[in-house]
């Protein structure tokens, strides 16, 4: 177990494509970090540079206190779980787990004990003699996890390990990975494009966009104070509503219609306003602004109402108990609004307020 220190790391491929640019990140010992972003954002490349499967163009990666830029993957003492599991098809489950230990010259009795322990932890004892192709997707996933565990590595690296599983299994495996990591206390870096996985698994989320870090933070901090419109639209389901707006004298107007007033700490001018779906509330008749309903998604526990205010598309999450009309009036509390620079998309600080939405 050890901390991972990433300093100003870049990856430039032959041909000049910058997959990762100038990423710095300090991962504490035992921390669960999730790298999340859309495909092509450089999250897998960053993970593979930590693993040593990809060379580091500039910057340094240190595991423990040792800089590993020039160290072979084998000598970094990390374990990786791949998206396609990468189990050795010609070996039994036992041999799959034992392979890494044998390569390191671990005594036979020790191997037996460690494989047995990992198998017990993951409940794969009945399958130890089987070949991977005789296992279901979920069982293969467990074997892949087992292969990582038996090595007792300094860090676990996960490369979208759950994306090949069906939705139900994904949820249960997600929980198991979290519990297992807590129990073993091994530093983990987990790559996913699924913001829900990121929110539920991470101690800290790292949101990547075009090879750069957009934001690092605890899941709820990222959710409640997204650092940019990119993060706001990526984290959370449904995505945060973003609309062009104008602020004048503490009043926020979307498409010329005032939606909130009493906003402090924001200079007058054009900007992008962000509203979480659950922060938009129905208003008493006469109050609020008119909301034209386009269509409704019923999720059971809540109801997503898609519609528009002054032609700007917005989504709100309502309780299914509320009666609906074609046009309803809505309101939003001023302290629930997020403000982003219209040009850069960066979050605008509001010195007069504590972070919104607590």
């Amino acid at each position: 177990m050890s901390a991972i220190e990433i300093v100003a790391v870049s990856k430039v491929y032959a041909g000049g494509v910058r997959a990762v640019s100038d990423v710095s990140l300090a991962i504490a010992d035992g921390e669960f970090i999730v790298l999340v972003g859309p495909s092509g954002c450089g999250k897998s490349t960053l993970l593979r540079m930590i693993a040593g499967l990809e060379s580091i163009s500039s910057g340094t990666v240190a595991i423990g206190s040792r800089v590993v830029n020039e160290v072979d993957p084998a000598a970094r003492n990390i374990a990786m779980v791949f998206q396609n599991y990468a189990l050795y098809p010609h070996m039994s489950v036992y041999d799959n787990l034992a392979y890494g230990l044998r390569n390191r010259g671990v005594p036979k009795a020790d191997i037996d004990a460690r494989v047995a322990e990992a198998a017990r932890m993951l409940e794969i004892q009945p399958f130890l003699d089987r070949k991977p192709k005789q296992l279901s997707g979920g069982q293969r996933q467990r074997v892949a996890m087992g292969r990582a565990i038996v090595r007792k590595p300094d860090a676990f690296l996960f490369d979208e390990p759950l994306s090949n599983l069906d939705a139900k299994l994904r949820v249960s495996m997600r929980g198991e990975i979290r519990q297992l990591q807590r129990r073993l206390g091994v530093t983990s870096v987990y790559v996913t494009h699924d913001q829900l996985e990121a929110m539920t698994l991470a101690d800290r989320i790292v949101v990547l966009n075009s090879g750069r870090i957009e934001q690092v933070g605890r899941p709820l901090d990222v959710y409640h104070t997204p650092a940019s419109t990119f993060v706001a639209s990526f984290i959370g389901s449904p995505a945060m509503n973003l609309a062009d707006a104008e602020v004048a004298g503490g009043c926020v107007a979307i498409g010329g219609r005032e939606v909130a007033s009493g906003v402090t700490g924001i200079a007058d001018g054009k900007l992008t306003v962000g509203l979480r779906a659950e922060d938009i509330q129905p208003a008493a008749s006469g109050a609020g602004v008119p909301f034209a309903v386009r269509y409704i998604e019923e999720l059971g526990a809540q109801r997503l109402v898609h519609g528009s205010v002054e032609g700007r598309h917005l989504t709100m999450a309502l309780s299914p108990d509320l009666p609906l009309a074609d046009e309803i009036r809505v309101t939003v509390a001023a302290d629930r609004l997020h403000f982003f620079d219209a040009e850069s998309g960066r979050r605008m600080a509001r010195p007069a307020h504590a972070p919104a939405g607590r």
Partner: protein
Amino acid sequence: MQTKRTVFGNRLLPYALLLPQLAVTVVFFLWPAAQAVLQSFQREDAFGLSTTWVGLTNYADLLSDPTYLNSLKVTAIFAPAVTLLSVGLGLIFAASLDRLARGSRVYAALLVWPYAVAPAIGGIMWWFLFNPTIGLLPYLLAMVGYRWDHALQPTDAMILVVIAASWKQVSYNFLFFMAGLQAIPKSMIEAAAIDGAGPVKRFFTIVFPLLSPTTFFLAVINLVYAMFDTFPVIHATTGGNPAQSTNILVYKVFVDGFIGLNLGSSAAQSVVLMAIVVALTVIQFKWVERKVTY
């Protein structure tokens, strides 16, 4: 299960459509094969005027014929040697190319070229390269003190025909191994690297076992090739000599039948070869399909 069936209105049409292929098969394969079987039980006089039924005599004679036993022995050395050399080199080239980051397409194209060369021309080329008087290789060998002469030395002759026969086969095997290597997921190799296996260990514990179906398939194919398709190579290089040392079974069929005009014995020899081919084919289908999997 649903299968889509096309139904012909005319009952004769399907047979008419099959006829050209069947005709070719019958005329060029079944009929000669049947003739060979028939001839193997007969003996013809030197002028081809009379034919006598002799039963299994031709086969019995083969077993007591020292030149035939020698030919069996020569084939038993030649065929496995060609298989080992061509499959081995094909695997080495494919594995090396797989590790190459740049220029692999160029190398791959160059490595496939020999397969396009006609076997007889390949044989002639090696005959030139190894020619004791004008060849480049004997000249180089002489520098290290070896006097190469495949016209006199049985061992040299065997080495020559093995190399000449393997040469173009390497391309074929290389292609199959390339395809086999590309079918191995990259993440599996990476997993092994993280599991602490170096390149050599990875090759022997992961890559080679995963290639075993390909390897077995190629072993059988090359064995069949070496036993039956190497006639032009032998004919263009040594002609079975010196002292019968490269007279493999298929070449002896030709020599005894068409030069010696001993048709009965030649036919019996081809029937034996046919039996070997059938046996190898059966082994291939039984094993490749079932046993050699992981």
